[in-house]
């Protein structure tokens, strides 16, 4: 048989898992200890680095979209991590401000720091750039893009409610994995209201250059929203079959099938 080292190099190509690392006694080789340390450092930084809301606003403005900054009731990162309930509540003044700006729209888009500002910095504007033309094709009216700091997913319910939008899509930094500190999640909720449950949302996850590309994520979001608006539902009862539409090369989402009850 061939050299075990060659076999391990080949096996390691079959999975992103850290296999065939070798060992020094019972421990890891030095390079693997250092590699793990660097990856953990990057994931930690992604959690604690503050979101640059101004830079995001100007990047989104370049796409021709207006923005409004808001904050949750979590005053800082340390509180945010301990008190998920505060991250779901909108600052009362911001709620009134959004209500004042509200016009009846189809979709409110929220860019939220969540657990990785890095994910938002790297992926939010490119995702919106890919999505905006699809929304325009469908003739959807978009509310100004809300940039929310110290935010959890459910903050979008209050935002969508205040803006009187038919649906809300929250683009949020996901909990960073050791090998994916830059992953963006998208949560779509129809008829946003305070108190919606997670079972009423559809999720598109792992949006990043090395994961689900911006173009594919935009396609999925467009497909799901079209379905949600037509069927009048979102969440576990709305199954994501956009992959089939993507494979068949459909440019626009297929017409909804008759409901099976």
């Amino acid at each position, binding site marked *: 048989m061939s050299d075990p080292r060659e*076999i391990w190099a080949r096996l390691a190509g079959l*999975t*992103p*898992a*850290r296999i065939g690392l070798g060992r020094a006694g*019972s421990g*890891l080789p030095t390079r693997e200890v250092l590699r793990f340390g660097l990856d953990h450092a990057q994931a930690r930084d992604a959690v604690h680095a503050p979101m640059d809301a101004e830079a995001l606003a100007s990047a989104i403005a370049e796409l021709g979209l207006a923005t409004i900054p808001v904050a949750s009731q979590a005053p800082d990162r340390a509180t945010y991590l301990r008190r*998920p309930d505060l991250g779901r509540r909108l600052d009362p003044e911001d709620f009134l401000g959004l209500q004042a700006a509200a016009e009846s729209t189809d979709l409110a888009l929220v860019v939220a720091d969540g657990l990785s500002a890095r994910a938002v910095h790297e992926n939010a504007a490119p995702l919106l750039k890919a999505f905006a033309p699809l929304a325009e094709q469908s003739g959807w009216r978009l509310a100004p893009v809300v940039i929310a700091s110290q935010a959890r997913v459910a903050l979008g319910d209050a935002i969508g409610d205040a803006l009187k939008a038919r649906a809300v899509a929250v683009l949020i930094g996901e909990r960073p*994995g050791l090998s994916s500190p830059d992953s963006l999640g998208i949560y779509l909720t129809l008829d946003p209201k305070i108190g919606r449950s997670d079972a009423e949302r559809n999720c598109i996850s792992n949006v990043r250059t090395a994961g689900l590309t911006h173009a594919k994520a935009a396609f999925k979001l467009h497909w799901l929203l079209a379905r949600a608006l037509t069927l009048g539902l979102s969440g576990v009862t709305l199954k994501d079959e956009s992959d089939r539409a993507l494979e068949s090369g459909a440019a626009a989402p297929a017409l909804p099938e008759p409901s099976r009850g």
Partner: protein
Amino acid sequence: MAYRHVVGPRTHVFADLATLMAKATPVRSGDRLAGIAAESAEENAAARWCLAEVPLAEILARPLIPYEQDDVTRLILDTHDAASFAEIAHLTVGDFREFLLTATPDGLTRIAPGVTPEIAAAVSKIMRNQDLISVARKARVVTRFRNTIGLPGTLAVRLQPNHPTDDPKGITAAILDGLTLGCGDAVIGINPASDSVQALGDLLQLLDGVIQTHAIPTQACVLTHVTTTLAAMERGLPVDLVFQSIAGTEKANAGFGVTLALLKEAHEAALALKRGPLGDNCMYFETGQGSALSADAHHGIDQQTLEARAYAVARPFRPLLVNTVVGFIGPEYLYDGKEIIRAGLEDHFCGKLMGVPLGVDVCYTNHAEADQDDMDTLLTLLGAAGCTYIMGVPGADDVMLNYQSTSFHDSLYLREVLGLKRAPEFEAWLHGIGLTDEGGALLPGSGAPLLTAAPDLAA
């Protein structure tokens, strides 16, 4: 009935037993989030004084959740072993701590069926980490399926070869990595990315093929919802162990989509398959502090007590394996390394005291204030405490679930410093194929004997 404790000029009053237990718990973020934690260090200490004076018989007589409201309470009381309890019935919580520190292993085995989760949780709250370790170390819980798990001086490892898209080649490569590093005696257990029965079937066939072809004395499990595993058994797929996540209240279990009746149905179906040549322990449960609060099903009870109640759910099913996934849920429940370490030791202690074969997923997420050094500390303490098993994840990085657990290498470290052996049948298999010496230490050679013996796996 209210409880009182006087400290100098101040009288601390605790409205009821649930409040007293919550206030006596070493402080952690999840109980703060629920608004039930002690509000000062003195209140925390006063509650422990007060709790130490509560008779065990009183804890048994005052269910934290009423019998009529919760099927876990009914299970605890209906299956309580009064004969075993008789030996400790006269003790207070404080006396019970001293009883445990002096007890023999046989004594702990004798009282286990009489220990309710509330009693285990109460005494743990007045114990230091060293107490939790020394008592748990004496408790013996041995289970069997294709090998023998939990013998004194042994530590087993779950080989966890997860892959983000369930790719069979990627999973096989990770299994090979784990086996060549001497891991996999607790179970080879996959968390699948997909929850379809078809995907489950493919993974079950893969695991069964590996185990049968190479006559590995271990068992397989795909950790999917119990209803999916039931469907797999109906289709005749090879199911060794039935897995389910469970919690300590009826409502929290409903949040997981399970009832006690459903667990019973699955247990009976797995027993009927008779796949375990050495024993019929065929259930695998996972738990973790904070799951009831996150499901809004905590009834104002602290998360550590609720966690012990989850072991009461597991106990009647005589599981092969039960593990707490201690740091997975995040910093809103266990904030930092200190809280995770304490919780891991408490969970392990409570499980063992109740006669449940407790292992621990020593783990953390990247938004918790914890790192590899904290995990090394907890891992080493659990090794000293006689933990039944730990996880083995390639390089400690789970690329499917996005969290950090313990690695294959971590188990080698623990065996080396504490002299811990594997399940004897698995130890013999590793030696038989030439991976280890007679003492169980890995031989040099990057796993060449297994790569040679199993060319299909390395293909």
